[in-house]
């Protein structure tokens, strides 16, 4: 165990595992004109960014914009935002894979600008698609042993930890197989096993359940929350664009939009902050694209969000935020009928983190 020693902590870092100070990152970008032939592949958000110029007149995009946040020791902290919000860039900055342009951050008390080696010794990172980094010629067990050894564990300790990981993650039967032939859920488990081999105080998870089937996603969430976070006290910073996942797992959630953190609080407090009046959810058939605009034109409506789940039948949901649901329901139903659509049922629902996101950014998470 000679590789494990107490590392000096900054006195001010007793309570926080992660602390950022005006952390910013900008990337130079090719102007839109140079993306000829790729126009169809670019989302509206990316096109918008390609046309922007930075403060210094250069064509650039600000991926992380003056982020100031604190994550308490042992906390499960979520970064919630759509693709392109800056979540992954923020994690790359905190894990020293990127240098910031401005500001800095402390991870486990160590400065990401000056003490990269100590930061890396204090944390573990699970990235989406990270299983590709496993060696194809090594078995599951050999891959885990490889990582245990390059993280400095002695042979016996490495073997002990690997056996424990295989047992806990239910991968014992797969220990002699190569990662290439594992299911996506098992590969993700294998990645998490890496975090469990070396129980560093801070764990960064970038979209840990993306592409997993519901059962595998459940297993991953259960392992991270109950084993790593609750039992071992590992501080977790997880980025996700699944609001249900953030709601379920996180002690606190930061809403990220266009590189900025626009709100941070517990999921409950974030949701209650937008609970003014009623939130009606109407399931509608034969919806037309301009239905939301028509409803928005009615008196007593704060906000309308429409989501078509089946483009063929036009079935979807309309969420209407209003100070008084009872008063406007008849008018809303009438407008929908006039547009040739029909209301299947109505529910007065509690706000979700999606509503919080809409409230702070004016956009949907999956826009």
């Amino acid at each position, binding site marked *: 165990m*000679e*590789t*494990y*020693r*107490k*590392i000096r902590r900054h006195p001010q870092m007793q309570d926080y595992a992660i602390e950022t100070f005006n952390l910013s990152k900008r*990337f*130079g970008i090719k102007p839109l004109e140079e993306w000829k032939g790729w126009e169809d592949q670019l989302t509206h958000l990316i096109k918008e960014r390609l046309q922007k110029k930075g403060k210094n007149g250069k064509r650039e995009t600000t991926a992380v914009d003056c982020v100031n946040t604190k994550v308490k020791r042992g906390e499960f902290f979520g970064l919630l935002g759509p693709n392109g919000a800056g979540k*992954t*860039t923020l994690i*790359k900055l905190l*894990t*020293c*894979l*990127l*240098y910031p342009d401005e500001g800095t951050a402390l991870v*486990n008390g160590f400065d990401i600008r000056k003490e990269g*080696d100590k930061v*890396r*010794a*204090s*944390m573990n*990172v699970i*990235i*989406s*698609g*990270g299983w*590709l*980094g496993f*060696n*194809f*010629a*090594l078995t599951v067990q*050999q891959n885990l042993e*490889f*990582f245990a*050894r*390059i*993280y*400095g564990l*002695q*042979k016996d300790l490495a073997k002990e930890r690997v056996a424990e990981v295989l047992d806990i993650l239910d991968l014992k039967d797969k220990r002699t197989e190569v990662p290439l032939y594992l299911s996506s859920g098992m590969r993700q488990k294998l990645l998490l096993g890496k975090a469990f081999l*070396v*129980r*560093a*105080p801070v764990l960064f998870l*970038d979209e840990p359940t993306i592409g997993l089937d519901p059962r595998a996603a459940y297993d991953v969430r259960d392992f991270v929350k109950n084993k790593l976070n609750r*039992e*071992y*006290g*590992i501080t977790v910073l997880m980025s996700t664009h699944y609001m249900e996942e953030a709601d379920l797992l996180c002690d606190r959630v930061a809403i990220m939009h266009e590189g900025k953190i626009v709100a941070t609080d517990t999921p409950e407090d974030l949701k209650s902050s937008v609970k003014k009046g009623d939130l009606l959810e109407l399931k509608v058939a034969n919806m037309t694209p301009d239905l939301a605009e028509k409803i928005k034109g009615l008196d007593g409506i704060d906000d309308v969000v429409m989501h078509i789940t089946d483009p063929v039948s036009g079935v979807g949901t309309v969420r209407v935020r209003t100070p008084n649901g009872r008063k406007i329901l008849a008018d809303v139903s009438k407008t929908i009928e006039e547009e040739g659509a029909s209301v299947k049922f109505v529910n007065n629902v509690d706000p979700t983190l999606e509503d919080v996101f809409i409230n702070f950014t004016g956009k949907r998470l999956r826009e």
Partner: protein
Amino acid sequence: MTEELRMDRRANLRAMWTFVKRDLKIWTYFKLNFLIDIAGIFSNIAIYAIIAMVAGKAVESSLNPFGGDYASYVILGIIFNEIMSTSLSAPYWGTMDAFWTGRLEILMISPISTPLFVTGTSIGRYVRSLINVAFYLIFGALLFGLKLGGTINYGLAILYILVATIACTGLGLMGASLIYLIEARGGEDPIRWIVGILVGLASGVYYPLSILPQWMQWLGCLIPQTYALDAARRSMIGEAIRAKTLPIHGLFSASPMMVDMAALIAFSLVTVPLGWWMYNQGVRRAKMDGRLSRWV
């Protein structure tokens, strides 16, 4: 319940050994490919042995300082060049493999330092190269007439190749830095490319430099391989130890072996710090502009 890790010297050595074992496992994973590699060594050496039989007499007089036997001359050239070309290419291919397989970010976010990363991703290639050398020696000595003679000094030959390996590693680091600095990710970088051409044409791997025009002999003096091949061959098969075989030898009164060693040390003193500085600059720049990883 959590633990913080610090990599000390012993942990670094353990990590290094892990890299070696991994690379050997990958090399031997596809058994057929492994056998084909070994067969490639056999065919390569056979080609030059046949050339030696057919045309060896034509260059015999130019080979006097090296024992006069073309087969031995060229087999030793190939063996020494195998080690030096590995040190030239290992930093590049170690980094490239890590990049394209998605392991670069995984290793860069682990507690291993950049020197350990570069060494770890390269070291398996050195071990593999030494295994290749063993096969070259076995095939050469048993089947293709490799004759060692004159004043054999294995220790001296190893010393020269070792210093040359250090100098070539410096050049290799400079080449690898271009992966980050100019995105040379297509399997070739300008530095290794130029050095590779000079090695083939004017370093004396396949034929003595004395058969080339003077200006090409001077070109050969621009790379460390030329000095290492000259001195290592003299140590293994050389008979005329004071013969001046490179144009630069004529500029100094010291013995050619001393000139070769001085040149190799000078190359090492320049290429290693410069290569290391360039590699670090490359990593720094890649971390600034986000080109280090494929994780998006």
